[in-house]
């Protein structure tokens, strides 16, 4: 009786906020993702121009050439808001801790040959810095992009990149002496085979258009790098030569890459579908940056996979082109 009384008498006056209801209607409660994300960025009556960028408002659509009638169309299919993102990552972290325990209890690191261990370090340690570039670039996308549906996942992605850089660091410390990190950094700065990639990363650090940066970093570079390194090198190459430990201690990366690719593809798809101008812009950016990324990764692919490197990289490139095609961008 009490329950019925409650149910009858205490009717909500409304189901959600007006800015949320604008997108999802008011006939039922909105989801937490929707309330946390849709149209929450301030958009009107800004008081002062940024002293650090007087050409623009604090949040300004004109920082990118992409034009969208409403930036709230760029939804994240994962529907991440802070809580679901951290809880998902905490779960992955738990899995990584069990991997560490497993590797330790079986002495898997010690069972690797020096050659395999050295190869793994040689290829993976400089990637700490690539991931750090990804962290900086996604912070930029968050800061200078428009609309929370686009920018909030970018900040999650920035922190994921930091997480990835830290997983690689921890791997280095598990496989070898701390000096292995310095050696990797030295290669990153000086070894010939890393220079095209470092140039690529540094060139993206000064890109001004947040959407172009999104394409150059998240689609073109990471879209080639992660499959090349974690599928072809770690899983198919290192693991088969007794380096299971390396695969287990980097398990986060391919899993995260596959998951976040859903978000990246959805953003590209929604932006491209809006207009032909957008599609052409994205296509031009993608072509430029994916070609450059492929060239920059060529010496890395050869370092990692020897004679098979370039073939593997081309396969990865073909797969990326297929991915883009599904998102509406035909290279």
């Amino acid at each position: 009786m009490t329950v019925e009384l409650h149910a009858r008498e205490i009717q909500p006056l409304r189901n959600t906020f007006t800015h949320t209801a604008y997108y999802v209607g008011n006939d039922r409660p909105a989801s937490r993702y929707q309330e946390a994300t849709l149209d929450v960025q301030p958009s009107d009556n800004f008081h002062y121009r940024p002293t650090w960028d007087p050409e623009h408002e604090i949040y300004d659509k004109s920082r990118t050439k992409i034009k969208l009638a409403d930036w709230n169309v760029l939804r994240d299919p994962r529907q991440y808001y802070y809580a679901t993102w951290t809880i998902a990552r905490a779960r992955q972290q738990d899995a990584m801790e069990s991997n560490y325990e497993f590797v330790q209890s079986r002495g898997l690191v010690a069972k690797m040959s020096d050659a395999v261990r050295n190869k793994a370090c040689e290829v993976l340690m400089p990637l700490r810095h690539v991931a750090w570039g990804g962290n900086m670039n996604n912070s930029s996308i968050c800061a200078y992009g428009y609309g929370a549906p686009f920018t909030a996942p970018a900040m999650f992605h920035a922190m994921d990149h930091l997480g990835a850089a830290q997983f690689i660091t921890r791997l280095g410390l598990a496989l070898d002496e701390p000096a292995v990190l310095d050696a990797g950094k030295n290669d990153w700065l000086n070894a010939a085979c890393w220079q095209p990639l470092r140039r690529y990363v540094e060139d993206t650090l000064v890109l001004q258009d947040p959407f172009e940066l999104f394409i150059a970093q998240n689609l073109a570079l990471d879209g080639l790098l992660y499959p090349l390194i974690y599928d072809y090198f770690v899983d198919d190459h290192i693991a088969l030569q007794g380096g299971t430990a390396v695969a287990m201690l980097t398990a986060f990366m391919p899993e995260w890459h596959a998951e976040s690719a859903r978000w990246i593809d959805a953003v590209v798809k929604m932006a491209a579908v809006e207009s032909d101008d957008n599609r052409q812009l994205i296509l031009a950016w993608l072509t430029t940056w994916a070609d450059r990324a492929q060239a920059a990764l060529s010496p890395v692919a050869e370092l990692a996979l020897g004679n098979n490197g370039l073939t593997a990289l081309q396969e990865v490139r073909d797969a990326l082109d297929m991915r883009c095609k599904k998102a509406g961008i035909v290279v």
Partner: protein
Amino acid sequence: MDTPVLKKKLGLKERYAAMTRGLHWDTTYQPMDKVFPYDKYEGIKIHDWDKWEDPFRLTMDAYWKYQGEKEKKLYAVIDAFAQNNGQLGVTDARYINALKVFLTGVTPLEYNAHRLFAHVGRQFTGTGARVACQMQSIDELRHYQTETHALSHYNKYFNGMHSPKHMNDRVWYLSVPKSYFEDACTSGPFEFLTAVSFSFEYLLTNLLFVPFMSGAAHNGDMSTVTFGFSAQSDESRHMTLGIECLKFMLEQDPDNVPIVQGWIDKWFWRGYRLLSIVAMMQDYMLPKRVMSWREGWEMYIEQNGESLFRDLARYGIRKPKGWVQACEGKNHISHQTYAVFYSYGAAAAFHTWVPEEEEMAWLSEKYPETFEKYYLPRWNYWREQAKNGNRFYQKTLPMLCQTCQIPMIFTEPGDATKIAYRESDYQGDKYHFCSDHCKEIFDNEPEKYVQAWLPVHQIYQGNCFKPGVDPTKEGFDPLLAVFDYYNFKVGRDNLDFEGSEDQKNFAAWRGDSVQGAKK
């Protein structure tokens, strides 16, 4: 097979450095100044970013696990609160109005903090500073989202909370927090940290946190208490960032000291003015009082602040310029601010009311030198008027301070009977201020503050009507058109608490549930 070797182990500090600063390299294909273009123009000289002390050492693995646990607990409480109609457990529906002020005034600032910490988290040349700022960026997104989710349930049952984003971008009194925060966001990265992390989070934060969160606890709002305390656990990291950044600037170069002192002067006063809204909430809007604004001020500012500035004296930093006046204001600002909202009660998206008899007695006791002398007579008069059906509503628009954007309501130092007015001329125009300190902030940076989107000016210029509205049409009511632009539901969101829909609904809902419980 290789024999296992005993590997060199890194200490905690070195390990953290490897996980963060070790990732950085000085770029050579692109000049460093182009990669980090924004952290020099303010004039702050940094000679050695390696001297930056990490304010906390949290790697992403620990961050995810720790924060993930917190979120599970927090959302369990929010869910239970909604399922059990927890909103009926608060002391009195008047309390909800404090939440309306919070949701429309404070929550949008959390969002801005998220974006601007992403900006400085990208732009500082020092890696340690970047990582700390990035973590704060996602923490602030967390605050925005958890506050939104926790208060979403209240929005379903009470008026005035339906359009926080829309209102924060438009409504006259919400331009006070909006302009405050946008001022910080449009500053350079070092000033931004001085404003937000040091002046607000380190120095003033307790004045915001204690009234809202203890206020919630005292008034039976467990949902707000839970998100408040959950956010506060991030806040300790943010406060450490504020003080570390301040000391870092001061230690790097003596030329930084006067710049930083200027920022402390400015942001102490900006923050103090902003908090007058909290002062009013604390003294007038909580049905069950926690402590008075004055008591909070004495405890958190006069006592803690005194020792803080004694500590900073060795760097050549003194107390902020507005200190003495702000301390004098502790006896006045809550009364002056609430009186404005009471009289502009038709133009606010929350309810106001005349304090009840025992609440007046509480105010007399807490403010023995000022309440009865300056403020009680006006309440007695307004109460009489309301009783006779003449609830007082101000119909003219107030003049606003060009800097803090609060109406001209604050009195002269030393004379609580006289409203303070100051003015400055700039490029042939006159600008008005509430105080010497707001005037000085303007005079130091007039090119910035002339840009202010002053709500009252904007109304007069016809910029606060919905697109397509025709002010020349017969019977056009400008005030109603402005309320429409604000998305106010006239008669539901605004006016006195007495007779409001909130009041009636709450009584009906609670009456039913009390009866139900008796059966």
